[in-house]
């Protein structure tokens, strides 16, 4: 078994420098790599390009990096929950590439799986198609989309073992598995880190080969964006 465990968030983020392209898992605030983001803020690294479905909220998630102007460019599908983001975007301080959510997921998956490009119907006939090759297959029009290239992927899993095998919980899975192995270095933080052999090999969501570094996150706030309940 190949060991992936690092001592903590400090070692996990070694090598992240100005101007890099980062992938960050999560949907809204669900399943985001809280510990990695918190440490990125303290590192004061600038000029980042972040590939992440959302951009957090003003005071949590990627919003923390936005507030400190560490992000030069965001690649996301939906950014509606973040006023600071909208302000920076409309003022031109922040470059934004809005990408259909399924295309974003597939561009990560393609990077991970060695597929340099693929065709999707999403965005055909819209401004997303600008500058992209279009082609007809079976009477329908498609866009060609290329795989992402990223330096680091930051991923949050529920359980992980020393061999880097991962299991996610509920909808906190989202983009996290797609980003494992999609960057040069994949860093994973987990709620529970177990010895190799503790997880059923049949029930691994992401095999360890897609993971370079793994550590147990110190704390998880797991903030709920829209607590919605019914009464008994």
């Amino acid at each position, binding site marked *: 078994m190949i060991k992936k465990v690092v001592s903590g968030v400090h070692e996990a983020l070694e090598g992240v420098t100005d101007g890099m392209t980062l992938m960050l898992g999560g*949907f*809204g*605030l*669900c*399943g985001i790599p809280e510990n990695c983001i918190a440490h990125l803020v303290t590192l004061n690294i600038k000029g980042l390009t972040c590939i992440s*479905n959302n951009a957090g909220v003003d005071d949590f998630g990627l919003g923390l990096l936005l507030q400190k102007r560490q992000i030069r460019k965001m690649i*996301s*599908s*939906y*950014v*509606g*929950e973040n006023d600071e983001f*909208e302000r920076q*975007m*409309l003022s031109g301080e922040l470059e*934004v590439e*809005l990408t*259909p*959510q*399924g*295309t*974003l*997921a*597939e561009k*990560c*998956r393609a990077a991970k799986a060695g597929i340099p490009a693929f065709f*999707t*119907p*999403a*965005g*055909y*006939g*819209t*401004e*997303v198609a600008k500058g992209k090759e279009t082609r007809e297959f079976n009477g329908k029009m498609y866009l060609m989309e290329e795989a992402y290239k990223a330096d680091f992927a930051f991923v949050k899993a*529920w359980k992980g073992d020393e061999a880097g095998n991962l299991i*996610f*919980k*509920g*909808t*906190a*899975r*989202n*983009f*996290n*598995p*797609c980003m494992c192995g999609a960057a040069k270095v994949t860093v994973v933080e987990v709620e529970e880190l177990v010895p190799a052999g503790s997880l059923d090999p049949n029930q691994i*969501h992401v095999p360890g080969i897609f993971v370079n570094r793994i550590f147990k996150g110190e704390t998880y706030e*797991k*903030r*709920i*964006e*829209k*607590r*919605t*309940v*019914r*009464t*008994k």
Partner: protein
Amino acid sequence: MLDKNGIAKRIAKEVQDGYYVNLGIGIPTLVANFVREDISVEFQSENGVLGMGPFPFEGEEDADIINAGKQTITTLPGASFFDSATSFGMIRGKHVDLTILGAMEVSENGDIANWKIPGKMVKGMGGAMDLVASAENIIVAMMHTNRAGESKLLKNCTLPLTGVECVKKIVTNLAVLEVTNEGFLLLERAPGVTVEEIQKATEGNLIIKGDVPEMIL
């Protein structure tokens, strides 16, 4: 004239036994409340869940189990969780039978705009572009006119498009309409609404064939 719940109630009648359904944010979310209890339907949420149930009871909410609107949810027996690539595989691969979503504008050829107002609103398209580009069966749920009283059923959309020639049916506070090669075919009137009122609120070509029945809710 229908309120939001009325629109949702009318759309619920389009949901058939055995359908997998994706509901957008806003009015579409309400549709789940009105689906007949004697049919089997599963709700997909593009953030990675199939078999969504009702909202959790207070104190039982789980930060790791949400829908695409970021609301806490529960799951029903037979549910499954999966990653975003798999989720959009379901959508792009046409495994979801019905997509219901809101819109800012729809054109008479079925184009839809619902993600951006240049220089003003930039929330992003989320999964909407994937959904409208792939779904065989798309119903738009919206008000017939905007807050300024202008028609949202147009000859051509003025806002940046989400998808082209994809909307099949529209349910508004005033009417049920089908998108045809010639334009918006008026299928049903909302209770108490006249054909003339619908005509006045529709900028795109409205096709009226014979007597247009009032919808049954």
